[in-house]
């Protein structure tokens, strides 16, 4: 059992003509129709927003070192957690894997030259940028303080902050998601290469497909909700105002109808990445392919049936609460199925601990913890105690950061050689993964305890007895921050000085590894014909490559 995958770098340079050097100049990038270049445009943008959102998190954690608040006024603190949430959710997490890795890989994995609608793909990036500009405008001009959830009537009537630009920004960016989802669905249905049946597709494609279903069916409801909020705020009348007979709970129903499935938009793609990494670094076919594929679809469907668990304590009917609670328990099952199957894949595998695998293993552990703590919240009685506390904050950060972000980083490391044609420095990558894992747990595990002990979330100050745990959390955050900066540096470094990667440095299966690194603009010299089952690592190990 090897600990290190031996990668023999190709002695010669990257292929002469690839998608990166086929044309030069800013016009060739800003007007590109190549899905790979659009993926890189997204990569730059979401990285920018990640650090903006991270900046707000840093300020919050510094502020919370002191029980009275060390840094800002409470009104400003409200803006910090709002902007952190809005930017991280809508401008980093939701687009991250689909718009970067999805855009880059979906056509390659189905053996196509591009997505079905390349111009819509480029349009989706511009829409994202315009939406991001509106939101950055709101950040620069004083920020929003309503919480990323924009609950009415505070957001519609009483808030004095930049609600309109922020809501507009999210509204606009939603169409970027819709176009991406549309492109993926049509491409996967209509453009698979000969021989690529549904059950020969890599599981990453199944998860992209399931995510796209949520994009298509959920995002429009958020759009109309924010649009109504915008009308209410701008024209002073609307349908969420109690003064006219409006019901704030209606806003919450419409908001969470999208925003709960949205969290599955954020985790499903990461699960798809894990399903690619585990077989490769265990040198073993994935266990339970069909189970994982169908569980992705199951998650997409069930995710729409549980949104009321965000509203248990708001005045929603208790009977509806019962139904939502039961369904929330149900939705945990497909996720658990995946965890069991990944674990079974590892069993008796030939495991190597390269950076992508470290992230994948971290994902399995941390996602499981986050998911299990969700059951505490799905249960009506315990949710009464834990709602509005740091338990919730820890729960979703374990899934979003311990899960989704680590899945994203694992995927970036795994496919970096394909994207850039270069290898990143493995020792630094492992160090960064370890720092991130340690820093993450130090940041968020204390928050479970804080929430259980009763510390409310979104509060700018807290009782003195909670200070020790808060300081631990802030210390973890500073370590986590360092961990996130390191990959930025070595990825950039590798683009110039990294060893040349060659077509398949990991010895992985999948169509994307059968072409050069970086790929040519048309992806393949000629359209591939698929005859192998996916994840045929046994065949590989037996020497039949």
């Amino acid at each position: 059992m090897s600990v290190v995958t031996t990668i023999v770098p190709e002695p010669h340079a990257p292929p002469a003509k690839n998608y990166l050097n086929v044309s030069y100049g800013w016009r060739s990038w800003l007007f590109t129709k190549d899905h790979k270049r659009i993926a890189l445009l997204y990569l730059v943008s979401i990285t920018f927003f990640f650090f903006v959102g991270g900046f707000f998190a840093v300020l919050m954690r510094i502020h919370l070192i002191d029980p009275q608040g060390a840094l800002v006024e409470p009104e400003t603190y409200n803006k910090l957690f709002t902007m952190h949430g809005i930017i991280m959710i809508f401008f980093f997490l939701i687009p991250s894997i689909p718009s970067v890795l999805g855009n880059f890989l979906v056509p390659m994995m189905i053996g196509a030259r591009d997505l079905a609608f390349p111009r819509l793909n480029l349009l989706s990036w511009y829409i994202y940028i315009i939406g991001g500009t509106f939101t950055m405008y709101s950040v620069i001009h004083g920020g929003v303080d309503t919480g990323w959830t924009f609950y009415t009537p505070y957001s519609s009537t009483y808030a004095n902050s930049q609600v309109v630009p922020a809501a507009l920004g999210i509204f606009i960016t939603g169409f970027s998601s819709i176009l991406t989802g549309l492109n993926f669905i049509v491409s996967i249905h209509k453009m698979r290469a000969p021989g690529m049946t549904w059950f020969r597709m890599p599981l990453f494609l199944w998860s992209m497909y399931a995510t796209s279903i949520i994009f298509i069916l959920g995002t429009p409801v958020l759009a109309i909700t924010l649009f109504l909020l915008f009308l209410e705020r701008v024209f002073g009348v609307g349908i969420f105002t109690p003064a006219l007979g409006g019901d704030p709970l209606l806003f919450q129903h419409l908001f969470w109808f999208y925003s709960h499935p949205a969290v599955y938009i954020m985790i499903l793609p990461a699960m798809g990445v894990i399903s690619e990494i585990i077989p490769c670094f265990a040198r073993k076919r994935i266990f339970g392919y069909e189970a994982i594929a169908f569980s992705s679809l199951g998650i997409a469907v069930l995710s729409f049936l549980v949104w009321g668990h965000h509203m248990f304590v708001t005045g929603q009917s208790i009977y509806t609460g019962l139904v939502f609670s039961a369904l929330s328990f149900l939705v945990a099952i497909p996720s658990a199925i995946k965890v069991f199957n990944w674990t079974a894949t590892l069993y008796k595998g030939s495991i190597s601990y390269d950076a992508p695998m470290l992230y994948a293993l971290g994902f399995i552990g941390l996602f499981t913890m986050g998911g299990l703590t969700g059951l505490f919240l799905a249960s009506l009685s315990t949710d009464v105690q834990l709602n509005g506390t740091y338990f919730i904050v820890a729960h979703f950060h374990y899934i979003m950061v311990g899960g989704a972000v680590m899945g994203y980083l694992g995927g970036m490391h795994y496919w970096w050689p394909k994207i850039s044609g270069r290898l990143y420095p493995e020792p630094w990558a492992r160090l960064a993964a370890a720092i991130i894992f340690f820093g993450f747990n130090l940041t968020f595990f204390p928050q479970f305890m804080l929430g259980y002990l009763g510390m409310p979330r979104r509060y700018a100050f807290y009782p003195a007895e909670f200070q020790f745990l808060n300081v631990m959390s802030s210390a973890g955050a500073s370590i986590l921050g360092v961990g996130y900066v390191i990959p930025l540096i070595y990825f950039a470094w590798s683009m110039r000085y990294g060893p040349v990667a060659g077509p398949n440095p990991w010895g992985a299966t999948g169509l994307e590894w059968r072409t050069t690194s970086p790929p040519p603009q048309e992806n393949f010299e000629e359209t591939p014909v698929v005859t192998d089952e996916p994840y045929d690592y046994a065949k590989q190990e037996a020497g039949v490559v």
Partner: protein
Amino acid sequence: MSEAHRGQVVAHQFEDGGQQHDADTLGIWVFLGTEIMFFGGLFTAYAVYRSLYYPAFAAGSRVLDIKLGAINTAVLLSSSFTMALSVRAAQTAKRTALAGLLIATMVLGAAFLGIKGFEYYQKFVEHVVPSLDFAPQGEVLARLAPGGLGHAQLYFCFYFFMTGLHALHMIVGMGLLFVLMLRARRGEFSAEYYAPVEVTGLYWHFVDIIWIFLFPLLYLIGGRY
């Protein structure tokens, strides 16, 4: 430009024209799915408040001009008819008929918007515009007061939001039709390549279907007996 393309225009990512046509068709239907959910959120909100404040909604509905609403419905259905015929003209390679039918669709669409605009003007005159000018007088006030003016204002919010959003979609559709008409006159479509006409048609029919529901939901609440 004397003669534009004949036959197929196949984009590089597709293997052949058939795959492209299939992809375009599936793409527009998936997009219409998003529109169903977009309007669906609005319809849900409407349904909730109608069930909570039925008398006010019924009263507000009776303030609308049912004749104009019915005429507009017929106008929009006629535009769907001409749109369907235009797709048929494209399929049968009748270039002049295609352009003419697209123009007819646009004219009918403009007629719809004109009548809608007149109805909006009527509402301004009657002072039932929420927030901006909600001070109904005389007979209108007498109709709305029993259900509660606050709830009546809520009804008119939905009237303007729903018909306004619909009108916005129609304006976009008119723009698409105009571009389509120009392309048709340039001879860009043929019996093999008419997907843009079909796709635009599907969008136009969908906007028509929205109105098919808006008419009873906004104009016919509670009846007029």
